């Protein structure tokens, strides 16, 4: 019995093997698919990991020992005092003030530039302006810091006669210039997504180019322009080294643009080196990190939704 089935089985297996087309190319295709998928989800993995690592490092302190009333209500940030105080109000105010000044600088100039590049400039001029603005985005933040410290600081003292040139205005202008390129790019994309037929219709009615821009293009591009502002805010808000070097780094709720300020990001950068892993001060800095992460995450999410919206409608 067994003797007759065994050759049958072998023949059966051989026939199957002949049908099997899973050659090396097939297997490498399979392996590649898995590897590529691994790479594909890496961005999600890292975002989740950032959240988890920041959360776990700061959690114990945030839940058990941090007085949230003091955190949001007090301006006393004295992690090395007796007892240590963790009042972040001045840091939050400093961050908000610097971001606000940065937007006052960046919004008019980047929108103006976006309109000029998108609606007025032509050919080679346009390409060169775009390149210059892209190069503006490439200047490293520590170089901006040097400019703030050694160039704009002395200018401020000379121009306005203020005691220290390292202040809210200095940091705000620098952050504005740093945020402007991305805002210009996104705003120009938004203008480009407005269909040309709209422009042609308006021009056919005798509108000048400016009237077309003001009455037709800008109103239609509004969601994209909001996205540009949001992304600019995210940029300015999260900037660290330049703001650390140019802002004066003094804990203070600013009352004028010439007051020195201190931001959340700069505090982390300045103090992380002097803490020991796991102590309260270290954990407090991670709490500031979570705060930064959550706020930028929200801003980026909203901005991304807006960008996706106008890209889809434009297409």
């Amino acid at each position, binding site marked *: 019995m067994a003797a007759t089935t065994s050759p049958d089985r072998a023949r059966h297996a051989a026939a199957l093997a002949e049908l099997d087309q899973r050659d090396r190319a097939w297997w490498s295709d399979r392996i590649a698919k898995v590897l590529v998928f691994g790479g594909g989800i890496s961005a999600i993995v890292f975002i989740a990991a950032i959240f988890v690592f920041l959360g776990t490092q700061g959690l114990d302190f945030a839940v058990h020992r941090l007085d949230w009333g003091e955190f949001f209500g007090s301006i006393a940030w004295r992690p090395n005092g007796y007892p240590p105080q963790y009042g972040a109000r001045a840091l939050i105010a400093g961050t908000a003030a610097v971001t606000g000044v940065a937007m006052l600088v960046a919004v008019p100039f980047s929108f103006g530039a976006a309109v000029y590049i998108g609606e007025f400039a032509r050919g080679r001029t346009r390409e060169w302006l775009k*390149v210059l603005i892209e190069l503006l985005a*490439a200047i490293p933040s520590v170089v901006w810091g040097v400019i703030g410290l050694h160039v704009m600081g002395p200018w401020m003292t000379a121009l306005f006669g203020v005691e220290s040139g390292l202040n809210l205005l200095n940091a705000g202008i620098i952050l504005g210039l740093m945020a402007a390129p991305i805002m210009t790019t996104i705003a120009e994309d938004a203008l480009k997504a407005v269909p040309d037929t709209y422009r042609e219709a308006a021009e056919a009615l005798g509108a000048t180019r400016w009237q077309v821009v003001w009455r037709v293009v800008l109103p239609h591009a509004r969601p994209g322009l909001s996205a540009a502002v949001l992304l600019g805010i995210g940029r300015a808000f999260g900037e660290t080294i330049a703001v650390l070097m140019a802002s004066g780094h003094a804990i203070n709720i600013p009352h004028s643009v010439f007051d020195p300020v201190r931001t959340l990001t700069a505090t982390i950068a300045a103090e992380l080196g002097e803490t020991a892993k796991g102590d309260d001060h270290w954990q407090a800095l991670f709490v500031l990190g979570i705060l930064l992460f959550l706020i*930028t995450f929200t801003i980026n999410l909203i901005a991304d939704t807006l960008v996706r919206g106008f890209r889809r409608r434009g297409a």
Partner: protein
Amino acid sequence: MTVVDATFRATAVEQRSMTVQRAFQLLFLFTTIVLALPVLGILAELLIRGSPGLSLAFFLDNPRNGMTEGGIFPALIGTLWLTVGALAVALPLGVAAAIYLSEYAGDNRLTRAINVAIVNLAGVPSIVHALFGVGAFVHFMRFGASILAASCTLAVMTLPVVIVATRESLQAVPQAFREASWSLGATRWQTIWRVVLPNSVSGILTGVILCVSRAVGETAPIMFTGAAFYVPLLPRSVFDQTMALSYHLFNVSTQVTNVPPHLPFAVALVLIGVVLSMNATAIAFRMRLRGRKKW
């Protein structure tokens, strides 16, 4: 009876709107120039104030006398290590992610989540990346403060740059190329490897250059993960700490006293020279890519 005037004459209203139009055009030109000038201004300022400090010895010497004299050699070499390390991690991951998104991913929730994650990863503040690097690589993975930890931190930060640049160039390859390859019996991977990737090399190179330029310029993510204030010896393995150009610039600008005034500008000039020349190369690559899009 209407008399038709044969020559066009602008009415008062039309003249006014043309004046308004010209005024606004000038205003927008002005705002654009204000944004474009700082690049040239900063370059000029750094050249004027930094170039007296440049010499061959500046590139080849160790810092001396409490960092107030000598050169930047260890910082240059350290930046090279960090950048190559970051690229070694970010490039394979980023290219794989771009291939997945361009060649495999369907229009579903996962793809949308990946895109959202990429946008957010690019928007996370650099100091938050630093905290993540300290928590994840220095302590959790036990890399210590080392080139390895700093490179990994930089890689996570520059990953979106690689993904976006590569994905754009993969998507620019015409679908017909893929279909031709499939119809010859090639597998999906064979098609990607032999047809799609070779046709998007310049886009991937753009991603590489932008990734490197970003990694060279960043300071915050490496401050606590592997960059050192002063290490006279060159690194011998990825577990050593190292000096880095950007962190060195931060230190000679803010931490060291009695620095001669030209020194920060000289270091900044070297740094911005590296970064801007890489970005200019990337832009040139991209223009060539777009110009050649006829296939």
